[in-house]
């Protein structure tokens, strides 16, 4: 019953969020602020994690594929497809759910408990739309860019770690990266990233918007938003993979 209550309340909130904005100019300004705060500020962590993960995947593949019958360019291919299909879309989204999601839940939750949201409503502003719409748009716009950046830096990580370990040459690695490339994988994962971007912004925003209580509850909601968003990302990953890879 509780699940249906939350689902209904979430849908009603989204209906309010996607209303016609009161002042396009102010929303536009807000969107740019959110793109910087939620997207640009995440570039550093995305690059660091992707470089390391690209390197680690390459080393793992090197040790597991050390067989004379296995061509070494498969290491580059394996790294590329792992990054495109799961790491740069799903795992990166899980990481963003932690970083961006908790930020959104805490910010909106704090505004709720300090009556800032009430004060917007009193002014006649659609607070749901004003606060949540720019965040959703920002994350949805920025997620595919971070996805591409993550693939690129992950491949660079592999390029550094693979030849350094001595298991694969630079030429073999690069050959593997370009071998049997399936563009559909990028399209599929890009679409997944868009869907996950929507979840990363909307679920924590929903939880923060309806928080009731004080600082303790805001803290709880922040944690809850990470857990809920992560589970939803994995669930939708399963569903989307089943649908698009049938």
């Amino acid at each position: 019953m509780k699940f249906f209550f939350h689902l209904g309340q979430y849908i009603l909130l989204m209906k309010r969020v996607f209303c016609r904005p009161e002042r396009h100019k102010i929303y536009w300004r807000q969107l740019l602020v959110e793109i910087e705060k939620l997207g640009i500020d995440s570039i550093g962590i995305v690059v660091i994690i992707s470089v390391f993960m690209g390197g680690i995947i390459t080393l793992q593949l090197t040790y597991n594929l050390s067989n004379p019958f296995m061509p070494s360019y498969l290491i580059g291919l394996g790294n590329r497809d792992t990054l495109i299909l799961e790491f740069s879309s799903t795992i990166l989204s899980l990481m963003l759910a932690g970083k961006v999601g908790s930020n959104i839940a805490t910010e909106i939750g704090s505004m709720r408990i300090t009556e800032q949201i009430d004060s917007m409503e009193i002014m006649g502003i659609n607070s749901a739309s004003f606060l949540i719409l720019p965040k959703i748009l920002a994350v949805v716009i920025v997620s595919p860019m971070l996805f591409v950046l993550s693939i690129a830096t992950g491949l660079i990580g592999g390029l550094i770690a693979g030849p350094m370990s001595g298991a694969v040459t630079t030429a073999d690695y690069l050959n593997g990266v370009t071998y049997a490339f399936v563009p559909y994988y990028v399209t599929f994962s890009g679409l997944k990233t868009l869907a996950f971007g929507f979840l990363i912004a909307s679920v924590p925003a929903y939880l923060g918007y309806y928080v009731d209580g004080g600082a303790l509850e805001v803290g709880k909601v922040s944690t809850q938003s990470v857990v809920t968003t992560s589970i939803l990302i994995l669930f939708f990953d399963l569903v989307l993979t089943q649908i698009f890879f049938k």
Partner: protein
Amino acid sequence: MIEIKGLCKSFEGRPILKDISTKFEKGKTNLIIGQSGSGKTVLLKSIVGLLDIDEGEILYNGEDVSHLSDKKRKSLRQDIGMVFQGGALFDSLTVEENVRFPLDMFTKKTDKEKVDRVKFCLDRVDIKGANDLYPAEISGGMRKRVAIARAIVLNPKYLFCDEPNSGLDPMTSILIDNLINQITQDLDITTIINTHDMNSVMEIGDNILFISHGEKWWEGNKNEILYTSNEKLNDFVFASPLYREMRTLKKQELKDEQS
């Protein structure tokens, strides 16, 4: 003028406000007093429309707000200014941006006009040199004054204040009280203040509504409160020996004035 008739509000079956009727007149500082948990904030939030009521009517200049169209309701909201207990300033905006925010959202004024209006309102509440500071960088009293400036920036017809003196020292409290009272008279607006500050009651209470356990117990002005025989009200307002002594002195003063 705001009139409420038979207002009832409950939470999960627990009645909070029981059949409250009263009038808040224009140009007067109307106070709602009562103990903590008596339903003051629920009453104020119901009047401004933040909470839906179960029964009764809330009339703004004779028009029942529960029957207003969305468009009219939105336009009414722009006639309302509210000062929340903690100020409710937007943390991510500076003092100037906070006061300017309603102008950006609802007016088509030029940049220069907006800057002038913000300056006028900040001067009105005596805030100087803090335009670029964030709410976290200013004191509680300043935050309340900035909140008042933001509340009056659109020239509201109705001003609501939820415990504007809470957490402030006596001197700042008096300043805030006088400021709200002055604004009410200058702009000729309907002001409703939630308070349990007895200085406010004695200084600016043009019309006082006392509620206890969600019920209306007494209504009158700051002079009438001195002569009331309502025990509950006396226990609340003149709880300390100092206030009881002050009442005796004030009564004497009024007597002398009359004679």
